């Protein structure tokens, strides 16, 4: 019974996604699809963070760090030249397994880099591992302490990508090759592949949303909400709160890393601003605007705000807009912007029942 209510909106969203593409193609405005593709990837980070913040009740001010781990590792491993170390046992084994790519630079030098799939799995694996190792001590913290610890993690990642030559320092990494998912389907920023990439990103987002919707309506989802309510009560009925929080943290980090990896291939590069604290705050802001414990709200706001931001509608006030939005929402509608409107509508519709 609940299943139809859970899946029907997803079908509606899918129809809207197709509708937007058809409309954009028909009106010759497919350039909108580029921003919608990027927004979809950012949304993947946001719904993952929504699970962590809204449902498990744990704030993370370091999610841009996980996005950056995914993006930077994918970028570095697929675009660096590993010819110098091609003789090592590891590289030879990888080569024999067909996981390396041989190609030539513009000047005819031979280049050797990792297959994007391999780089992808390494990037996600590293992000998951870091989330796991970091999460064990960090998630014991609460409130300010948790906020500062995750913020600290984010800043460390930012400093590393900014200082390490391997990650291109202040310039970041560019000329990241396309990610051939399967023959005929690649994540790339090619103009000709616009429509295809729009569907890849949205299919992934829909799938991610489906997974999380299932999760929050399950035994583990209830457990997470219980932890949010009262950890003491959750423990008393046998929920291993430390483990549940840790797994949620890892899942949400994995969502961020997947988005980071694919968006980097789509953009063809990544820069240090993707790892900045401001990006993390932006993700938190969008989850807050969407209503914290509201996956659909987070998704809707993620698409709208990211699309507007990517279209440059906020101009040089981009960060200020997100800071302001965050502040206003927390001041006047901590339950999210949707709750506000819904409540007002109900209020207006209810007839005055004076006694």
């Amino acid at each position, binding site marked *: 019974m609940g*299943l139809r209510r859970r899946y029907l909106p997803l079908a509606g969203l899918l129809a809207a996604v197709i509708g937007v593409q058809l409309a954009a193609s028909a009106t010759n405005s497919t350039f909108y699809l580029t921003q919608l593709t990027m927004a979809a990837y950012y949304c993947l980070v946001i719904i993952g963070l929504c699970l962590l913040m809204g449902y498990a009740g744990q704030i993370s001010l370091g999610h841009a760090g996980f996005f950056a781990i995914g993006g930077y590792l994918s970028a570095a491993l697929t675009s660096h030249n590993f010819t110098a170390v091609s003789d090592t046992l590891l590289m030879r084994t990888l080569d024999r397994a067909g996981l390396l790519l041989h190609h030539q630079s513009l000047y005819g030098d031979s280049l050797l880099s990792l297959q994007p799939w391999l780089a992808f799995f390494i990037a996600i694996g590293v992000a998951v591992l870091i989330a796991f190792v970091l999460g064990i001590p960090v998630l014991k913290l609460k409130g300010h302490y948790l906020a500062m610890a995750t913020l600290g993690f984010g800043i460390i990642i930012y400093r590393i990508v900014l200082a390490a030559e391997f990650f291109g320092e202040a310039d970041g990494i560019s000329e990241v090759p396309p990610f051939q998912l399967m023959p005929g389907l690649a994540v790339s920023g090619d103009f000709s592949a616009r429509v295809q990439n729009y569907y890849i990103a949205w299919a992934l987002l829909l799938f991610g949303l489906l*997974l*999380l919707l*299932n*999760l929050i309506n*399950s*035994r*583990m*989802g*209830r*457990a997470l*909400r*219980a932890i*949010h*309510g*009262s950890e*003491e*009560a*959750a*423990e*008393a*009925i*046998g*929920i*291993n*709160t*430390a483990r549940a929080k840790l*797994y*949620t943290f890892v*899942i949400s980090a994995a969502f961020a890393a997947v988005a980071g990896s694919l968006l980097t291939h789509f953009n063809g590069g990544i820069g240090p601003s993707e790892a900045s604290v401001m990006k993390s705050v932006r993700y938190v802001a969008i989850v807050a605007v969407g209503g914290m*414990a509201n996956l659909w709200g987070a998704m809707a706001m993620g698409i709208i705000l990211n699309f507007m931001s990517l279209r440059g509608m906020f101009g040089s006030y981009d960060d200020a807009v997100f800071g302001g939005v965050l502040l206003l929402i927390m001041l006047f509608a901590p339950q999210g912007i949707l709750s506000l409107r819904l409540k007002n509508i109900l209020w207006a519709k209810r007839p005055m029942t004076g006694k």
Partner: protein
Amino acid sequence: MLELYSVHKYFGGLHAVDGVSFRVAPGSIKALIGPNGAGKTTLFNLIAGVLPVSSGNITFKGRQIQGFKPHRIAALGMSRTFQNIKLCHGMTALENVMLGRHIRSSAGLLAAMLNLPRTWREERDIRHRAMELLELLGIAEFAEVEATSLAFGQQRAVEMARALATEPELLLLDEPASGLNIYETAEVARLITRIRDMGITVLLVEHDMSLVMDISDEIVVLSFGAKIAEDRPEAIQKNPEVIRTYLGETEEASA
């Protein structure tokens, strides 16, 4: 069932629990009473694993449990309610009780995310069992109401249903009658004896003397963290030391 041996708890310089020993026999109702600040709730928290003991032993079903996390103790078959009811905000009464089935079900994160057939079958069973418990406690009609918006007595019932949903062998009740009127208290008394008759051992902390005297098989009296008496209700009422430190005090207060 449950055995405490020489349990001590210090908070800095404060000796909150001072060498308390007692045992709870299977299938009995045992009550813990004492004046305010006697260390009853602290002792409860020690048993449930919320606070670590400073020294001494606590065994549950023959196993030492001090140092265990609360969720492990719960998984062993000990469940509890709270003095200030802790229901989950934003969840219906039914969902709150379904939460109690957590340790009796198994779907993990991955299975849940993929919503495998096994997962939704299990989910259906959880819902079914939770509904049964709501019926048992006479609050089935509120199943779909948000739990925290219910009346106080109904919230207590939901919390008790949630504790029962874990299928405990020992149920810890922290002041189950606080905030209830005399009718509701009588209802709770009936309920507790019914739970005992289902084969569940009960340990409760309570202020309401009439409730304690009516339903308990045995009573432990605490004062300033130490046990001063342990006996059957009739004997406790006659115990001079108890009358002096506890009942005497309440009489003076009510006089």
